[in-house]
């Protein structure tokens, strides 16, 4: 625990070295000459490793701050490398010390920060077998095996809980359950297990008293949680629950929202025209005019006038129908429709008359179009009231679906990036 000794001199080169760890730290490695000293045996020099290349990382011996709610001090540094699937990877482990919580590690890996601590999970892993992407239990939860590799020490400095040797290696199996991980390190028949937590880098830097002005972390870390941002997450959550509601509402309106027929007629000679009279009882509800004509490779245009009988106010508008079909290359085709629907809100209640007749063709109409113009086909008119439109709910359902889908897509891409670095299986 707390040592009165706060600094000492290297017994080899005499350089001043900080004494930051408690009594359980076994080794002290000189930052200057690389001498490995036995803290439990009068700082006797056990080995010396000169000119070790210092690993990348933001922390130095003596840096301190809060990690996972516990005040910690960096007392040792270990540079680690591993050759995985044809590539060499490097990361830096910082030995942390807390008088109340003991020793743990903070790891700097491509700009990501993780914390790991030794745990005894109550499981005998000596007989366990691990397969990529298979789940295994530990610490009362399930972890997915991510990768296995041999980690080799290439740099040591400061106070460490064991006596390290340069180039020592350990076989590691990593399991993940973001934002946590569970690792098994196997050496000489012994298995040590560690529990890991992905750290918010900015928060840690702030706790250690320096600004996070380093480049953003590279890629996705194995135990990095998917954090899409509060706004997108909230929107996707809302979309997840409201999208089915909107779709059901749209479907319901499509089936039930056609309203009720209040007038209908059939105009046999559309060139002469015809009319239909109906009563509008509400100005807030939609009404519709359903038009249908048995056109065959024809088109037609109808001028319409809606007259409010009591006031004499008129509204003029028009609508056309065209329908063409045929066979081409052994397949049938068609375009246009024999039906059309016009929706409107009556400007006032009362009786209306809808007058319909073919529009006269002017000189701009081509001969072919004149020949295909239908004035001899009967036109069925049906006026309906209390009509509801489902299209807006469909649009809403689609928009919500896109929001939710974009979240799932982002998550899928995130997971793909995560597993890009892990052991692959056969699937």
């Amino acid at each position, binding site marked *: 625990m707390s040592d009165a000794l706060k600094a000492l001199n290297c017994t080899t080169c005499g350089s001043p070295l900080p004494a930051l760890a408690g*009594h359980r730290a076994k080794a002290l490695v000189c930052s200057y000459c690389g001498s490995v000293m036995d803290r439990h045996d009068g700082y006797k020099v056990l080995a010396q490793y000169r000119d070790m290349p210092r690993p990348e990382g933001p922390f130095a011996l003596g840096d301190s701050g809060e990690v996972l709610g516990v005040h910690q001090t960096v007392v040792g540094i270990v540079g680690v490398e591993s050759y995985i699937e044809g590539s060499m990877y490097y990361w830096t482990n910082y030995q942390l010390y807390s008088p109340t919580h003991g020793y743990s590690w903070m790891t700097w890996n491509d700009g990501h920060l993780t914390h790991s601590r030794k745990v005894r999970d*109550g499981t005998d892993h*000596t007989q366990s077998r691990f397969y990529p992407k298979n789940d295994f239990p530990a610490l009362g939860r399930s972890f997915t095996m991510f990768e296995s590799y041999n980690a080799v020490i290439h740099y040591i400095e400061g106070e460490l809980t064991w006596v390290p040797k340069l180039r020592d290696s350990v076989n590691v199996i990593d399991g993940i359950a973001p934002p946590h991980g569970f690792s098994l390190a196997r050496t000489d028949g012994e298995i040590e297990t560690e*529990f890991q937590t992905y750290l918010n880098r900015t928060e840690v830097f702030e706790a250690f008293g320096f600004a996070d002005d380093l480049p953003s972390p590279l890629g996705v870390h194995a135990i990095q949680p998917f954090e899409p941002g509060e706004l997108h997450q909230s929107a996707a959550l809302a979309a997840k629950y409201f999208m089915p509601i909107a779709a059901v509402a749209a479907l319901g309106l499509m089936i039930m929202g056609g309203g009720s027929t209040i007038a209908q007629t059939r105009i046999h000679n559309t060139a002469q025209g015809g009319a239909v009279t109906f009563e509008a009882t509400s100005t807030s509800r939609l009404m519709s005019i359903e038009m249908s004509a048995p056109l065959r490779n024809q088109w037609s245009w109808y001028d319409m006038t809606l007259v409010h009988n009591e006031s004499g106010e008129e509204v003029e508008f028009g609508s056309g129908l065209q329908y063409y079909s045929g066979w081409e290359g052994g397949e049938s085709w068609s375009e246009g429709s024999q039906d059309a629907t016009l929706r409107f809100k009556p400007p006032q209640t009362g009786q209306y008359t809808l007058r319909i007749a073919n529009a006269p063709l002017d000189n701009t109409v081509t001969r072919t179009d004149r020949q295909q113009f239908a004035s001899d086909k009967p036109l069925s008119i049906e006026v309906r009231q209390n009509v509801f439109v489902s299209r807006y709910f469909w649009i809403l359902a689609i928009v919500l679906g896109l929001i939710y889908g974009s979240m799932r897509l982002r998550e899928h891409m995130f997971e793909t990036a995560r597993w890009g670095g892990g052991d692959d299986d056969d699937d």
Partner: protein
Amino acid sequence: MADDFNCPNCGGQLSRKVAHSKMVTCPYCESTVLLEDETVKLAGVGGVMADEPSLFVLGRAVEYQGESYMPIGQARFSYSSGWWDEIWALDGHGNGVWISVDEGDIAIERNHETDLKIDERKLKLGARIEFEGEIFRVTEVDRGKCEALRGEFPEEMAVGDTYTYYHLSGARGSLITLEFEDGEMYVTEGQWIDPYEIRQQAVEANS
């Protein structure tokens, strides 16, 4: 006997929290006081306990995995590479447990009655020992010396007492501590616990 009494050394008002406590330390004169049936007897001195940051503070309950523990006694021992605390605490059922605290290595242990006899000479560091059907490895052998006492305890303890202890670790994180005295073997068994899961993490000096 009554739970309130006077220190036989300084007359200070003392009390014990647990009826079966056998020893308390006097906060006024740092004497240790033995409680035997109807008598109160001066035993020795409590020694000087340097204040250190700790998750366990006498009289302040902590919680671990849903179980509460109330520390009522603190014994400090020195050993070859430093020192550790043995905290005598009551769990939520009023049962006593020993909590060993050594720089974040924390174990909760309970007294374990056994008829098994283990030859102390076989307890070499690294040796594999079968104990009640489970294989353990001897992971620590050292001598501890009691340096200071504070609070109350279920047994007589004295500053200056020394003994050899053996830690036996099982494959599933279980822990057994063996101590030998006058040909008798005393066993405590328990588990290592994760300090990060201890709630009410008041990191402050003992008062």
